[in-house]
Protein backbone atom coordinates (compact mmCIF):
# COMPACT_ATOMS: atom_id res chain seq x y z
CA UNK A 1 0.00 0.00 0.00
CA UNK A 2 2.84 2.35 0.72
CA UNK A 3 4.59 1.69 -2.54
CA UNK A 4 5.02 4.89 -4.40
CA UNK A 5 5.00 3.84 -8.05
CA UNK A 6 1.23 3.85 -8.50
CA UNK A 7 0.95 7.30 -6.99
CA UNK A 8 3.46 8.59 -9.51
CA UNK A 9 1.59 6.75 -12.25
CA UNK A 10 -1.65 8.45 -11.22
CA UNK A 11 -0.07 11.88 -11.07
CA UNK A 12 1.60 11.45 -14.45
CA UNK A 13 -1.64 10.27 -16.01
CA UNK A 14 -3.61 13.22 -14.63
CA UNK A 15 -0.90 15.65 -15.70
CA UNK A 16 -0.88 14.10 -19.15
CA UNK A 17 -4.64 14.40 -19.48
CA UNK A 18 -4.56 18.02 -18.33
CA UNK A 19 -1.91 18.94 -20.90
CA UNK A 20 -3.12 16.76 -23.75
CA UNK A 21 -6.71 17.60 -22.94
CA UNK A 22 -6.06 21.29 -23.46
CA UNK A 23 -3.69 21.01 -26.42
CA UNK A 24 -4.70 18.02 -28.52
CA UNK A 25 -7.01 18.33 -31.47
CA UNK A 26 -10.71 17.86 -30.92
CA UNK A 27 -13.64 17.55 -33.31
CA UNK A 28 -15.23 20.84 -34.30
CA UNK A 29 -18.84 20.91 -33.17
CA UNK A 30 -21.43 23.63 -32.96
CA UNK A 31 -22.62 24.81 -29.51
CA UNK A 32 -20.06 22.59 -27.79
CA UNK A 33 -17.11 24.35 -29.36
CA UNK A 34 -14.07 24.02 -27.12
CA UNK A 35 -16.13 22.86 -24.14
CA UNK A 36 -15.86 19.37 -25.55
CA UNK A 37 -12.57 19.35 -23.70
CA UNK A 38 -14.61 19.26 -20.51
CA UNK A 39 -15.17 15.62 -21.35
CA UNK A 40 -11.65 14.97 -20.07
CA UNK A 41 -12.38 16.58 -16.72
CA UNK A 42 -16.09 16.12 -16.05
CA UNK A 43 -16.59 12.46 -17.00
CA UNK A 44 -13.55 11.09 -15.14
CA UNK A 45 -15.06 12.49 -11.92
CA UNK A 46 -17.94 10.07 -12.34
CA UNK A 47 -15.61 7.26 -13.20
CA UNK A 48 -13.56 7.92 -10.07
CA UNK A 49 -16.77 8.03 -8.03
CA UNK A 50 -17.89 4.67 -9.44
CA UNK A 51 -14.48 3.17 -8.69
CA UNK A 52 -14.60 4.39 -5.09
CA UNK A 53 -18.15 3.19 -4.53
CA UNK A 54 -17.21 -0.21 -5.96
CA UNK A 55 -14.28 -0.37 -3.55
CA UNK A 56 -16.70 0.46 -0.76
CA UNK A 57 -19.06 -2.35 -1.74
CA UNK A 58 -16.14 -4.75 -2.00
CA UNK A 59 -15.09 -3.97 1.57
CA UNK A 60 -18.69 -4.09 2.82
CA UNK A 61 -18.98 -7.63 1.46
CA UNK A 62 -15.66 -8.45 3.07
CA UNK A 63 -16.85 -7.03 6.37
CA UNK A 64 -19.98 -9.18 6.32
CA UNK A 65 -17.90 -12.27 5.57
CA UNK A 66 -15.04 -11.78 8.02
CA UNK A 67 -16.16 -9.05 10.42
CA UNK A 68 -12.88 -7.17 10.58
CA UNK A 69 -13.24 -3.59 11.80
CA UNK A 70 -10.71 -2.18 9.34
CA UNK A 71 -12.87 -3.31 6.43
CA UNK A 72 -15.73 -1.22 7.79
CA UNK A 73 -13.50 1.85 8.00
CA UNK A 74 -12.35 1.25 4.44
CA UNK A 75 -15.95 1.08 3.26
CA UNK A 76 -16.99 4.33 4.91
CA UNK A 77 -13.88 6.24 3.90
CA UNK A 78 -14.15 5.29 0.25
CA UNK A 79 -17.77 6.43 0.29
CA UNK A 80 -16.66 9.75 1.78
CA UNK A 81 -14.12 10.32 -0.99
CA UNK A 82 -16.56 9.08 -3.63
CA UNK A 83 -19.10 11.67 -2.51
CA UNK A 84 -16.50 14.42 -2.93
CA UNK A 85 -15.89 13.31 -6.51
CA UNK A 86 -19.58 13.06 -7.25
CA UNK A 87 -20.15 16.61 -6.00
CA UNK A 88 -17.26 17.85 -8.14
CA UNK A 89 -18.77 16.02 -11.10
CA UNK A 90 -22.15 17.56 -10.43
CA UNK A 91 -20.80 21.11 -10.18
CA UNK A 92 -18.61 20.87 -13.27
CA UNK A 93 -21.54 19.34 -15.11
CA UNK A 94 -23.77 22.21 -14.02
CA UNK A 95 -21.28 24.81 -15.24
CA UNK A 96 -20.85 23.00 -18.52
CA UNK A 97 -24.63 22.77 -18.89
CA UNK A 98 -25.02 26.50 -18.26
CA UNK A 99 -22.95 27.37 -21.30
CA UNK A 100 -24.18 24.70 -23.66
CA UNK A 101 -27.76 23.87 -22.69
CA UNK A 102 -28.53 27.26 -21.16
CA UNK A 103 -29.25 26.47 -17.51
CA UNK A 104 -27.28 25.26 -14.55
CA UNK A 105 -29.95 22.71 -13.80
CA UNK A 106 -31.55 21.63 -17.07
CA UNK A 107 -33.75 18.89 -15.61
CA UNK A 108 -31.84 16.44 -17.67
CA UNK A 109 -32.47 12.85 -16.53
CA UNK A 110 -28.84 12.14 -15.92
CA UNK A 111 -28.44 15.22 -13.76
CA UNK A 112 -31.52 14.36 -11.74
CA UNK A 113 -30.63 10.72 -11.31
CA UNK A 114 -27.08 11.37 -10.25
CA UNK A 115 -28.47 13.79 -7.67
CA UNK A 116 -30.71 10.98 -6.42
CA UNK A 117 -27.74 8.61 -6.38
CA UNK A 118 -25.84 11.08 -4.21
CA UNK A 119 -28.88 11.22 -1.92
CA UNK A 120 -28.63 7.45 -1.66
CA UNK A 121 -25.14 7.75 -0.24
CA UNK A 122 -26.13 10.61 2.04
CA UNK A 123 -28.78 8.25 3.40
CA UNK A 124 -25.97 5.77 4.01
CA UNK A 125 -24.10 8.38 6.04
CA UNK A 126 -27.27 9.28 7.99
CA UNK A 127 -27.81 5.60 8.73
CA UNK A 128 -24.29 5.37 10.10
CA UNK A 129 -24.85 8.34 12.37
CA UNK A 130 -28.15 6.96 13.63
CA UNK A 131 -26.59 3.88 15.24
CA UNK A 132 -24.35 4.21 18.23
CA UNK A 133 -23.07 0.71 18.78
CA UNK A 134 -19.98 0.21 16.64
CA UNK A 135 -20.44 -3.40 15.53
CA UNK A 136 -24.12 -3.00 14.85
CA UNK A 137 -23.44 0.15 12.85
CA UNK A 138 -20.80 -1.57 10.78
CA UNK A 139 -23.03 -4.52 10.00
CA UNK A 140 -26.21 -2.66 9.16
CA UNK A 141 -24.51 0.01 7.11
CA UNK A 142 -22.59 -2.64 5.19
CA UNK A 143 -25.89 -4.31 4.37
CA UNK A 144 -27.45 -1.05 3.24
CA UNK A 145 -24.39 -0.24 1.18
CA UNK A 146 -24.60 -3.52 -0.70
CA UNK A 147 -28.34 -3.08 -1.11
CA UNK A 148 -27.97 0.46 -2.44
CA UNK A 149 -25.19 -0.21 -4.92
CA UNK A 150 -27.23 -2.08 -7.57
CA UNK A 151 -29.87 0.65 -7.31
CA UNK A 152 -27.20 3.28 -7.90
CA UNK A 153 -25.96 1.40 -10.95
CA UNK A 154 -29.50 1.20 -12.30
CA UNK A 155 -29.97 4.91 -11.66
CA UNK A 156 -26.80 6.10 -13.33
CA UNK A 157 -26.16 3.53 -16.05
CA UNK A 158 -29.49 2.02 -17.07
CA UNK A 159 -32.34 4.49 -16.57
CA UNK A 160 -30.85 7.42 -18.54
CA UNK A 161 -30.55 5.17 -21.58
CA UNK A 162 -34.29 4.60 -21.55
CA UNK A 163 -35.40 8.20 -21.47
CA UNK A 164 -34.76 11.38 -23.39
CA UNK A 165 -31.64 13.14 -22.29
CA UNK A 166 -29.49 16.00 -23.36
CA UNK A 167 -26.43 13.94 -22.63
CA UNK A 168 -24.91 12.26 -25.63
CA UNK A 169 -25.54 8.56 -26.00
CA UNK A 170 -28.93 8.65 -24.28
CA UNK A 171 -32.44 8.41 -25.59
CA UNK A 172 -31.88 8.89 -29.28
CA UNK A 173 -29.03 11.37 -28.99
CA UNK A 174 -26.05 9.94 -30.80
CA UNK A 175 -23.26 8.96 -28.44
CA UNK A 176 -19.83 10.46 -28.59
CA UNK A 177 -18.76 7.09 -29.89
CA UNK A 178 -20.68 7.37 -33.10
CA UNK A 179 -19.28 10.56 -34.47
CA UNK A 180 -16.68 12.33 -32.50
CA UNK A 181 -14.98 10.25 -29.88
CA UNK A 182 -12.25 9.58 -32.35
CA UNK A 183 -9.00 7.93 -31.47
CA UNK A 184 -7.45 11.25 -30.45
CA UNK A 185 -10.06 11.74 -27.76
CA UNK A 186 -9.92 8.16 -26.59
CA UNK A 187 -6.18 8.50 -26.11
CA UNK A 188 -6.85 11.23 -23.54
CA UNK A 189 -10.14 10.07 -22.03
CA UNK A 190 -9.15 6.57 -20.99
CA UNK A 191 -5.92 7.61 -19.26
CA UNK A 192 -8.00 10.29 -17.52
CA UNK A 193 -10.36 7.60 -16.18
CA UNK A 194 -7.47 5.58 -14.81
CA UNK A 195 -5.54 8.59 -13.53
CA UNK A 196 -8.41 10.15 -11.61
CA UNK A 197 -9.42 6.78 -10.18
CA UNK A 198 -5.89 6.34 -8.87
CA UNK A 199 -5.96 9.83 -7.36
CA UNK A 200 -9.28 9.03 -5.72
CA UNK A 201 -7.88 5.78 -4.38
CA UNK A 202 -4.87 7.66 -3.06
CA UNK A 203 -6.99 10.16 -1.15
CA UNK A 204 -9.02 7.29 0.20
CA UNK A 205 -5.94 5.49 1.54
CA UNK A 206 -4.85 8.71 3.25
CA UNK A 207 -8.25 9.12 4.87
CA UNK A 208 -8.20 5.48 5.89
CA UNK A 209 -4.80 5.83 7.53
CA UNK A 210 -5.87 8.96 9.41
CA UNK A 211 -9.03 7.24 10.58
CA UNK A 212 -7.21 4.17 11.87
CA UNK A 213 -4.82 6.33 13.89
CA UNK A 214 -7.76 8.34 15.25
CA UNK A 215 -9.53 5.18 16.30
CA UNK A 216 -6.39 3.89 17.97
CA UNK A 217 -5.98 7.12 19.91
CA UNK A 218 -9.59 7.22 21.01
CA UNK A 219 -9.75 3.66 22.23
Amino acid at each position, binding site marked *: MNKIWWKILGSVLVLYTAIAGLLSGVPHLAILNETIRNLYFHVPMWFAMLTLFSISVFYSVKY*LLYGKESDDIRAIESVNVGIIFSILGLITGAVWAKFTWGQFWSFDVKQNFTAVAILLYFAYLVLRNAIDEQQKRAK*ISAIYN*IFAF*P*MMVVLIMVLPRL*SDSLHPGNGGNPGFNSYDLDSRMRAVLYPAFIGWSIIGYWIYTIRFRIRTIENKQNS
Partner: protein
Amino acid sequence: MQLLHQVKYLIKKEVLLEWRSKYALNGVLLYVVSTVFVCFLSFVSIAPVTWNALFWIIMLFASINAVSKGFLHESKGQQLYIYTIASPLALIISKTVYNVLLMMLLTLIALFFYVMVFDYVPQDLGLYIIATVLGSLSFSTIFTMISAIASKAGNGGMLMAILSFPVIIPVLIVLIKLTKNAIDGLDRSVSLDEIGLLLIINALVAAVTLLLFPYLWRD
Protein backbone atom coordinates in the same frame (compact mmCIF):
# COMPACT_ATOMS: atom_id res chain seq x y z
CA MET B 1 -38.61 -28.81 1.72
CA GLN B 2 -38.21 -27.65 5.28
CA LEU B 3 -37.89 -24.07 4.04
CA LEU B 4 -41.10 -24.31 2.04
CA HIS B 5 -42.90 -25.70 5.04
CA GLN B 6 -41.66 -22.91 7.28
CA VAL B 7 -42.56 -20.26 4.74
CA LYS B 8 -46.05 -21.62 4.44
CA TYR B 9 -46.45 -21.70 8.19
CA LEU B 10 -45.18 -18.13 8.64
CA ILE B 11 -47.41 -16.74 5.90
CA LYS B 12 -50.36 -18.48 7.49
CA LYS B 13 -49.42 -16.92 10.81
CA GLU B 14 -49.19 -13.44 9.29
CA VAL B 15 -52.49 -13.76 7.50
CA LEU B 16 -54.16 -15.07 10.64
CA LEU B 17 -52.79 -12.23 12.76
CA GLU B 18 -53.89 -9.72 10.16
CA TRP B 19 -57.29 -11.30 9.86
CA ARG B 20 -57.84 -11.06 13.58
CA SER B 21 -57.04 -7.39 13.93
CA LYS B 22 -57.48 -6.24 10.30
CA TYR B 23 -55.33 -3.33 11.35
CA ALA B 24 -53.16 -2.90 8.27
CA LEU B 25 -55.90 -3.62 5.79
CA ASN B 26 -58.46 -1.30 7.33
CA GLY B 27 -56.01 1.38 8.33
CA VAL B 28 -54.33 1.64 4.95
CA LEU B 29 -57.61 1.34 3.08
CA LEU B 30 -59.03 4.17 5.12
CA TYR B 31 -55.89 6.18 4.45
CA VAL B 32 -56.09 5.60 0.70
CA VAL B 33 -59.80 6.29 0.51
CA SER B 34 -59.59 9.50 2.49
CA THR B 35 -56.58 10.80 0.52
CA VAL B 36 -58.27 10.03 -2.76
CA PHE B 37 -61.34 11.81 -1.55
CA VAL B 38 -59.39 14.85 -0.37
CA CYS B 39 -57.61 14.97 -3.72
CA PHE B 40 -60.92 14.76 -5.53
CA LEU B 41 -62.42 17.55 -3.46
CA SER B 42 -59.45 19.81 -4.07
CA PHE B 43 -58.92 19.05 -7.77
CA VAL B 44 -62.42 18.06 -8.98
CA SER B 45 -61.28 17.72 -12.60
CA ILE B 46 -57.73 16.78 -13.37
CA ALA B 47 -55.38 16.28 -16.29
CA PRO B 48 -54.47 12.65 -16.99
CA VAL B 49 -50.77 13.25 -16.25
CA THR B 50 -51.53 14.68 -12.82
CA TRP B 51 -54.06 11.91 -12.24
CA ASN B 52 -51.33 9.38 -12.83
CA ALA B 53 -48.69 11.08 -10.70
CA LEU B 54 -51.16 11.57 -7.87
CA PHE B 55 -52.09 7.92 -7.88
CA TRP B 56 -48.49 6.84 -7.47
CA ILE B 57 -47.80 9.36 -4.74
CA ILE B 58 -50.80 8.13 -2.78
CA MET B 59 -49.72 4.52 -3.30
CA LEU B 60 -46.15 5.32 -2.29
CA PHE B 61 -47.15 6.61 1.13
CA ALA B 62 -49.80 3.94 1.59
CA SER B 63 -47.30 1.18 0.87
CA ILE B 64 -44.66 2.67 3.18
CA ASN B 65 -47.23 2.62 5.94
CA ALA B 66 -48.50 -0.85 5.16
CA VAL B 67 -45.17 -2.57 4.62
CA SER B 68 -43.10 -0.94 7.33
CA LYS B 69 -45.58 -2.23 9.89
CA GLY B 70 -44.22 -5.72 9.29
CA PHE B 71 -40.87 -5.34 10.99
CA LEU B 72 -41.09 -2.05 12.81
CA HIS B 73 -44.07 -2.90 14.95
CA GLU B 74 -42.89 -6.29 16.06
CA SER B 75 -41.85 -6.53 19.65
CA LYS B 76 -38.49 -7.92 20.69
CA GLY B 77 -40.19 -10.96 22.17
CA GLN B 78 -42.02 -11.73 18.96
CA GLN B 79 -38.79 -11.49 16.99
CA LEU B 80 -37.03 -13.79 19.40
CA TYR B 81 -39.84 -16.32 19.15
CA ILE B 82 -39.73 -16.35 15.36
CA TYR B 83 -35.96 -16.60 15.53
CA THR B 84 -36.21 -19.84 17.42
CA ILE B 85 -38.75 -21.53 15.18
CA ALA B 86 -37.73 -20.51 11.66
CA SER B 87 -34.68 -19.81 9.54
CA PRO B 88 -34.06 -16.20 8.49
CA LEU B 89 -34.55 -17.12 4.84
CA ALA B 90 -38.00 -18.49 5.58
CA LEU B 91 -38.80 -15.36 7.53
CA ILE B 92 -37.84 -12.87 4.85
CA ILE B 93 -39.48 -14.90 2.08
CA SER B 94 -42.70 -15.19 4.03
CA LYS B 95 -42.71 -11.51 4.94
CA THR B 96 -42.06 -10.47 1.36
CA VAL B 97 -44.68 -12.79 -0.08
CA TYR B 98 -47.22 -11.67 2.48
CA ASN B 99 -46.46 -8.01 1.81
CA VAL B 100 -46.72 -8.56 -1.94
CA LEU B 101 -50.14 -10.15 -1.54
CA LEU B 102 -51.32 -7.43 0.82
CA MET B 103 -50.05 -4.64 -1.42
CA MET B 104 -51.57 -6.15 -4.56
CA LEU B 105 -54.94 -6.35 -2.87
CA LEU B 106 -54.61 -2.82 -1.56
CA THR B 107 -53.46 -1.28 -4.86
CA LEU B 108 -56.17 -2.98 -6.85
CA ILE B 109 -58.86 -1.77 -4.45
CA ALA B 110 -57.29 1.68 -4.43
CA LEU B 111 -57.14 1.78 -8.23
CA PHE B 112 -60.77 0.74 -8.47
CA PHE B 113 -61.80 3.42 -6.03
CA TYR B 114 -59.58 6.02 -7.66
CA VAL B 115 -61.01 5.33 -11.12
CA MET B 116 -64.51 5.45 -9.70
CA VAL B 117 -64.12 8.73 -7.82
CA PHE B 118 -62.38 10.66 -10.57
CA ASP B 119 -64.51 9.03 -13.22
CA TYR B 120 -61.52 8.64 -15.49
CA VAL B 121 -60.47 5.39 -17.12
CA PRO B 122 -57.00 5.05 -18.68
CA GLN B 123 -57.12 4.13 -22.33
CA ASP B 124 -55.31 0.86 -21.84
CA LEU B 125 -56.76 -0.34 -18.56
CA GLY B 126 -55.19 -3.79 -18.89
CA LEU B 127 -51.70 -2.39 -19.10
CA TYR B 128 -52.43 -0.01 -16.25
CA ILE B 129 -53.47 -2.92 -14.05
CA ILE B 130 -50.32 -4.83 -15.02
CA ALA B 131 -48.30 -1.77 -14.06
CA THR B 132 -49.99 -1.43 -10.69
CA VAL B 133 -49.39 -5.10 -9.97
CA LEU B 134 -45.73 -4.70 -10.90
CA GLY B 135 -45.59 -1.53 -8.83
CA SER B 136 -46.99 -3.14 -5.72
CA LEU B 137 -44.58 -6.02 -6.24
CA SER B 138 -41.54 -3.77 -6.35
CA PHE B 139 -42.76 -1.50 -3.56
CA SER B 140 -43.23 -4.41 -1.24
CA THR B 141 -39.95 -6.18 -2.03
CA ILE B 142 -37.92 -3.00 -1.54
CA PHE B 143 -39.78 -1.71 1.49
CA THR B 144 -39.68 -5.08 3.24
CA MET B 145 -35.89 -5.18 3.16
CA ILE B 146 -35.51 -1.53 4.09
CA SER B 147 -37.95 -1.77 6.96
CA ALA B 148 -35.93 -4.74 8.22
CA ILE B 149 -32.77 -2.59 8.09
CA ALA B 150 -34.52 0.36 9.74
CA SER B 151 -35.99 -1.78 12.50
CA LYS B 152 -32.57 -3.26 13.26
CA ALA B 153 -31.08 0.21 13.34
CA GLY B 154 -33.38 1.23 16.15
CA ASN B 155 -35.33 4.41 15.45
CA GLY B 156 -37.82 3.32 12.86
CA GLY B 157 -40.10 5.75 11.08
CA MET B 158 -37.72 8.58 10.25
CA LEU B 159 -34.92 6.32 9.11
CA MET B 160 -37.34 4.29 7.02
CA ALA B 161 -38.25 7.36 4.96
CA ILE B 162 -34.66 8.52 4.54
CA LEU B 163 -33.40 5.10 3.50
CA SER B 164 -36.23 4.12 1.22
CA PHE B 165 -36.90 7.23 -0.84
CA PRO B 166 -33.66 7.31 -2.85
CA VAL B 167 -34.03 3.58 -3.50
CA ILE B 168 -37.65 3.79 -4.59
CA ILE B 169 -37.29 6.82 -6.87
CA PRO B 170 -35.92 4.90 -9.89
CA VAL B 171 -38.75 2.39 -9.59
CA LEU B 172 -41.28 5.18 -9.28
CA ILE B 173 -39.96 6.92 -12.38
CA VAL B 174 -40.16 3.76 -14.46
CA LEU B 175 -43.65 3.08 -13.13
CA ILE B 176 -44.89 6.56 -13.97
CA LYS B 177 -43.48 6.21 -17.48
CA LEU B 178 -45.12 2.84 -17.93
CA THR B 179 -48.50 4.03 -16.68
CA LYS B 180 -48.20 7.14 -18.83
CA ASN B 181 -47.92 4.83 -21.83
CA ALA B 182 -51.03 3.05 -20.63
CA ILE B 183 -52.93 6.32 -20.25
CA ASP B 184 -51.98 7.45 -23.73
CA GLY B 185 -53.00 4.06 -25.05
CA LEU B 186 -49.71 3.47 -26.83
CA ASP B 187 -49.03 0.14 -28.41
CA ARG B 188 -48.04 -2.37 -25.75
CA SER B 189 -44.79 -3.29 -27.48
CA VAL B 190 -43.55 0.22 -26.64
CA SER B 191 -43.81 -0.53 -22.93
CA LEU B 192 -41.89 -3.81 -23.01
CA ASP B 193 -38.65 -2.05 -22.07
CA GLU B 194 -40.13 -0.64 -18.89
CA ILE B 195 -41.77 -3.91 -17.88
CA GLY B 196 -38.49 -5.72 -18.43
CA LEU B 197 -36.59 -3.15 -16.41
CA LEU B 198 -39.06 -3.40 -13.53
CA LEU B 199 -38.76 -7.19 -13.54
CA ILE B 200 -34.97 -6.93 -13.58
CA ILE B 201 -34.98 -4.47 -10.67
CA ASN B 202 -37.27 -6.79 -8.74
CA ALA B 203 -35.11 -9.81 -9.41
CA LEU B 204 -32.03 -7.85 -8.35
CA VAL B 205 -33.62 -6.63 -5.15
CA ALA B 206 -34.94 -10.10 -4.35
CA ALA B 207 -31.53 -11.69 -4.91
CA VAL B 208 -29.71 -9.09 -2.80
CA THR B 209 -32.33 -9.38 -0.07
CA LEU B 210 -32.05 -13.16 0.10
CA LEU B 211 -28.27 -12.92 0.28
CA LEU B 212 -28.14 -10.17 2.88
CA PHE B 213 -31.02 -10.85 5.22
CA PRO B 214 -29.41 -13.76 7.10
CA TYR B 215 -26.53 -11.44 8.02
CA LEU B 216 -28.94 -8.75 9.17
CA TRP B 217 -31.03 -11.10 11.23
CA ARG B 218 -28.43 -12.81 13.38
CA ASP B 219 -27.14 -10.69 16.21
